[in-house]
């Protein structure tokens, strides 16, 4: 078991409607894996299963050598998985820095240390000038950055990114991609991302998993996936330009 994250036959249905069907996948340490697929394919459900927000009906999830399905979200975070939310959930009444400090406290011995760590993180995300702002005053792209900053502050081994590029301008998107590549290279952070922005996926992902109707229909390098006929058929479309 060399994979950092391994899903084995994981299924989840809601009131009989199958959202994720017998999905097996493995994410190697240090990899950047993108999860793509049409709306309703089960991407966010899969994230919630890994993050402990949902419990699988069947199957097993292993992380870093230990079984994590059935753990609470805070325990999954403790095990070393950080996540962002597709619909941002900032602590609106707290300052930008305090939002990140909450995350940093997970591995810090005290508030002073968490503040130092938090200040470093918001600087990396370009949020330092807005550190004192209430999080509610941030624009949506900045709130997406804050999601990432908070998750990074918990010092995860695996980062789950749920559509953090959506709504960013192309240049902002490229900056975010550069940041993730940098953290991945420097710290060996493993990343699993759900994304629709193909520009980001092509630049960032080492491999791409395609989910359709709750099942994995393809797994390949980005350049191959975009030529895969079944992927073009269900998701990207014939005339996708990249």
């Amino acid at each position, binding site marked *: 078991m060399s994979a950092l994250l391994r899903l084995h036959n994981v299924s989840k249905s809601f009131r009989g409607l199958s959202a994720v069907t017998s999905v097996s996948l493995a994410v190697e340490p240090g990899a950047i894996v993108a999860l793509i697929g049409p709306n309703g394919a089960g991407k966010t459900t899969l994230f919630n299963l890994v993050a402990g927000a949902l419990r699988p009906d069947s199957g097993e999830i292993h992380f870093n050598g230990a079984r994590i399905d059935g753990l*609470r979200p805070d325990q999954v*975070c*403790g095990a070393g998985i950080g996540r962002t939310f597709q619909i941002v959930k900032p602590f609106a009444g*707290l300052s930008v820095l305090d939002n990140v400090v909450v995350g940093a406290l997970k591995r810090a011995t005290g*508030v002073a240390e*968490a503040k130092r760590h938090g200040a470093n993180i918001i600087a990396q995300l370009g949020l330092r000038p807005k550190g004192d702002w209430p999080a509610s005053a941030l624009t949506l792209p900045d709130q997406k950055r804050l999601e990432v900053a908070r998750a990074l502050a918990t010092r995860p081994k695996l980062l789950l990114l749920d559509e953090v590029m959506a709504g960013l301008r192309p240049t902002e998107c490229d900056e975010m991609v550069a940041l993730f590549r940098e953290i991945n290279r420097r710290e060996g952070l493993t990343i699993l991302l759900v994304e629709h922005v193909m520009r980001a996926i092509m630049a960032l992902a080492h491999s791409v998993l395609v989910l359709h109707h709750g099942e994995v229909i393809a797994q390949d390098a980005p350049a191959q996936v975009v030529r895969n006929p079944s992927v073009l058929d269900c998701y990207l479309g014939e005339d996708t330009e990249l």
Partner: protein
Amino acid sequence: MNPRAAYLLAALGALLLVLPFVADSYLISLATLILYLAYTGQAWNLMMGFAGQLSLGHALYLGVGAYGAAALYHHFGIGPWAGMWLAIALCVSLAASLGFLAFRYGISGVYFTLLTIAFAEFARIGFDHFNWVGGSGGLFLKVAQRDQIDIFNLRGTPVMFYYVMLALAAGAFALCAWCLQSRPGYYWRAIRENEEAAEALGIDALRWKMLAIVSSAAMTALAGVFWAFYYNNLFPEQIFSIGRSIEIILGPIIGGIGTLAGPILGAALLTLIADGATELVAALGWDVPGVKQLIYGIILFAVVVFLPQGIWPALARKLNLSK
């Protein structure tokens, strides 16, 4: 804390320390009431203002704390310094049961609030029929000579009670100030703002909400002990009434929920204005029963409409006290 706020706090502390040397007995009783409301407001605010859990049943902890210590004293002659531990233990167990029931089984928001009211009402009805502590007829403590201070049994002059309440209020303020700057304060506020996000950041929401409700209850229990020995009489209809719970929360709401100074400012404003109005009405010879409640209502209405964050945040900005 910014230096101006520190000076202001020091000045307030000094003023409160020397107050009994310059004030008459009426003013001391008024100040004691303000400190009592500031203290209970601080306790409620820890749970609502910090952790976002709305309790409308804090009279439960006030009453159980009061009855616990008073019954020990009345039946066995055990003084409040020992009795307060019973009061705290009883209130902590009640709060822990209520909290676990609600937080473990996903009773949140308005349903949680209804549960807090229900617990307080259960207690009111239960104590009405609890004859060992007097039932609805009330429990009365022997009134000792008012001029001799017996600090071990908390019998003594109004000035002694004033200083006891001052110590409690100062302690609660310090505790809340410490909480806000440390892990509990960050975690509680995170849970208040967005519980799901807090959990994703590694916070065990159940555990921290339990800590909030239990701490708040323990603090309120002490106010109950004070109440019992200060007033020397306890009636279930009075101490467990919803009006008592609302009295506790008015100060922080008017002063500013989630702030440190809010409960103190709110308690002072409410008490002084309501008392001033009562005096005025009496001086004018009018007969207006319930003028105090009327004034509370008007102030609450004005604050909710014009300063929904409470008076303190706006005042702090005006005085340049927020950093």
